[in-house]
């Protein structure tokens, strides 16, 4: 029997390739984005006080405290001293903060006399953060004095303008822009289309038309602020090939983000390239400018606090400026969804995961069903995205309802849970790549090989009756080698 075995290669093996998981939309925040840059780029970026300020705000809480503590210290601070600032119970969080600071090149290790290693803030970062905090240095590029605008624009106007511009882009994506050109869409420029294609939010299909991708659908479900940020990141990716410098663009973007809403700024003294950038921002609705040539522009809410999605909603409602109502969706515990809207875009997005029942001039009624949600899940939308979309556009009255269950979400907990359960029930399979071993000639061979595979933790599945076993792909080489040794020794 062993002779017969030695001649053959033993149990036959076959490999099964993993079904590729469809790519989902990857949204980076500022920190993640900066981590993908080279240290040289970071150094260049830190030459702008605005960028330093934005980076500082995005740091973890402990890191922010560390930076401010050593901001005014003129010499490197020993690592042991910094470590002693945090409480022992939070050592892990502290280590994470320290490594984050290192990765972003905000501080670096230096040696100090006595053989100790110490932290030292990056000098450019330090200098420019101090400028942002305390003053000094050159003014930001858009703060030239202007005479008073004869027709100043108020905040309500800017909000409407910005949203109309931004919706143009979204409308274009869902293809509703073409059907009602009269409303607010004037189409979008080839530049914007190029960015959408680059970002993989849309793709060219066979008939050379442009259709939305699954990432595009996920993009639609994001809140406006995240959309703008994601879109701008994609824009920045392509800015080098347009001949724009990344630090200039990024600093411009953050200048806008730190500007005051409802105030006009001057574009005087900007280079021609920056003026082009400004025109692009104008197209997407991040700034308002009356005429292309006018040296005055107003930043809109889209540009403000571009990295922080909570900052757009004013935390304090002043009596004088009424916030525009953004929520229009009411979700009931019986899974009914009422959307007070007449925008085809919003209806289209809602239709992705609800079954629409009725349409009235200003109201759409739908119901969340297992089928409709599974339809969306199959399309690559996650439960998390559905829930966050509903939360984000929840009608203000939804936030006021008192519920017996304390939850942060304005939605009924049953609905949230059910949507998540519907997603979970699709996740019954976990895919593992593996190699099958079968057609063992004897039980003993099978048992030996199985025990070995088990002992090195690579066994995925085995069936003693059919003498079949599956090992992970990584373990295959080991098991194969073992089998060769074993069958030789045995023979």
């Amino acid at each position, binding site marked *: 029997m062993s002779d017969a075995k030695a001649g053959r290669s033993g149990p036959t093996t076959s490999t099964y390739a993993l079904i590729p998981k469809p790519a989902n939309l990857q949204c980076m*925040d500022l920190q993640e984005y900066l981590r993908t840059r080279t240290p040289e780029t970071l150094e260049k970026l830190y030459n702008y*006080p*605005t960028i330093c*300020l934005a980076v*500082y*705000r995005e740091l*973890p*809480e*402990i890191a*922010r*405290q560390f930076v*401010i*503590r050593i901001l*005014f210290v003129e010499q490197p601070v020993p690592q042991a001293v910094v470590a*002693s*600032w*945090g*409480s022992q*119970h*939070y050592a892990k*969080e*502290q280590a*994470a903060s320290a490594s984050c600071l290192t990765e972003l090149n905000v501080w670096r290790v230096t040696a100090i006399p006595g053989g100790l290693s110490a932290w030292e803030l990056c000098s450019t970062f330090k200098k*420019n953060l101090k*400028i*942002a*905090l*305390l*003053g*000094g*240095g*050159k*003014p*930001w590029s858009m*703060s030239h*004095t202007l005479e008073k605008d004869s027709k100043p624009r108020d905040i309500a106007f800017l909000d409407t303008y910005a949203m109309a511009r931004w919706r143009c882009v979204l409308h274009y994506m869902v293809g509703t822009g073409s059907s009602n050109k009269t409303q607010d869409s004037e189409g979008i420029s080839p530049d914007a289309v190029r960015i959408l294609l680059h970002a993989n939010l849309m793709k060219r299909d066979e008939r050379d038309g442009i259709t939305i991708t699954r990432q595009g659908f996920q993009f639609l479900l994001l809140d406006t602020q995240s959309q703008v940020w994601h879109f701008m990141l994609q824009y920045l990716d392509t800015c080098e090939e347009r001949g724009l410098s990344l630090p200039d663009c990024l600093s411009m973007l953050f200048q806008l983000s*730190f*500007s*005051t809403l409802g105030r006009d700024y001057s574009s005087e003294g900007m280079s021609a390239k920056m003026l082009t950038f400004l025109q692009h921002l104008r197209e997407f609705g991040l700034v308002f400018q009356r005429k292309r040539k006018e040296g005055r522009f107003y930043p809109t809410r889209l540009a403000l*606090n571009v990295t*922080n*999605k*909570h*900052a757009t*909603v*004013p*935390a*304090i*409602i*002043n*009596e004088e400026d009424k*916030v525009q109502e953004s929520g229009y969706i009411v979700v009931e515990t019986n899974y009914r969804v009422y959307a007070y809207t007449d925008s085809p875009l919003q209806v289209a997005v809602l239709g992705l995961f609800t079954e629409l029942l009725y349409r009235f001039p200003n109201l759409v009624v739908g119901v969340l069903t297992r089928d409709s949600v599974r339809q969306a899940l199959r399309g690559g939308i996650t439960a998390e995205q559905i829930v966050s979309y509903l939360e984000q556009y929840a009608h*203000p009255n939804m*936030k*006021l309802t008192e519920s017996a269950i304390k939850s*942060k979400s*304005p939605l009924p907990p049953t609905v949230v849970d059910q949507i998540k359960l519907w997603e979970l029930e699709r996740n019954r399979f976990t895919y593992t790549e593996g190699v099958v071993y079968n057609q063992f000639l004897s039980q003993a061979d099978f048992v030996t090989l199985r025990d070995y595979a088990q002992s090195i933790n690579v066994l995925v599945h085995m069936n003693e009756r059919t003498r079949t076993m599956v090992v992970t792909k990584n373990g295959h080489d080991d098991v194969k080698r073992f089998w060769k040794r074993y069958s030789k020794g045995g023979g």
Partner: protein
Amino acid sequence: MNNKSQDHDSNKFSLLVIVLDTNPSQRIVRQNPQLLTQFLDAIIAFGNAHLMQCSQNKLAVLSCHHHATDFLYPMPGKQLDVRQVDGQYEVFSLVEKTVKQRLSHIITNAPKLNAPCESILAGSMAMALCYISRIQRNAAAGVKMHSRILVVTGSNECASQYMTYMNVFFTAQKLGITIDVCALDKTMSLLQQGCDITGGQYLRLTQLDGLLQYLLWVFLPDPQMRQKLVLPPATKVDYRAACFCHRELIDIGYVCSVCLSIFCKFSPICTTCHTVFKIPGPIPGKPKKKKKV
């Protein structure tokens, strides 16, 4: 990852109200008037550092004079129209300009002082509480707000405001507002009680040079953040009360059995609730033995 999403998802902001003692009769200011300018710079930088932490953070600065309390920032009514002149963030410039302009206005318009006069700190703190509660009321639904008060003072202990202090402290405690105190000169045992009651930090500076650095180290972190850092440990708090008759701190005194007012000397009628007490006779000797039944 989990941690980070928590950080970002919780929609919250923090409001810091700084109560700055600007009374010219403070000993340290009388000795060296330049100090007030230095303090002011430190306070402004500290306030801006608070605003820098997060874009939603709010700041208010109150000046506590000997005769009145005024808002230094935000300016009551319309804000100044400040344009950027250097690399400083516009919002920070606005804070700096407003505070300086308001304070010079207050100081030039203050009535002349003949004798040193104590600061009405308790009143200023009450005003800070009112401001916080107004902002709280206007906060948008679903937004969590954390507020705290920082008192920076070089005044002496003023036991005469004992009642107001206690009202302020317990109100703050009830509203969940932390009171921090930075004493620049004398030990302030009453304010120290307030810190202890509301869970704030009390710090008495021994040298005034590094005021900003002290402020940034001890008072910049949010109360939620403080447990993650090592901060000066709480010292023993002097919990003596001030008597209601002479406003002096006492160890042992008389307490009204009806309204719990404290007196250093016995008085037959409680001045607060007008209860009449029996005059205690001479301390009785041994109680007479009961008659046997």
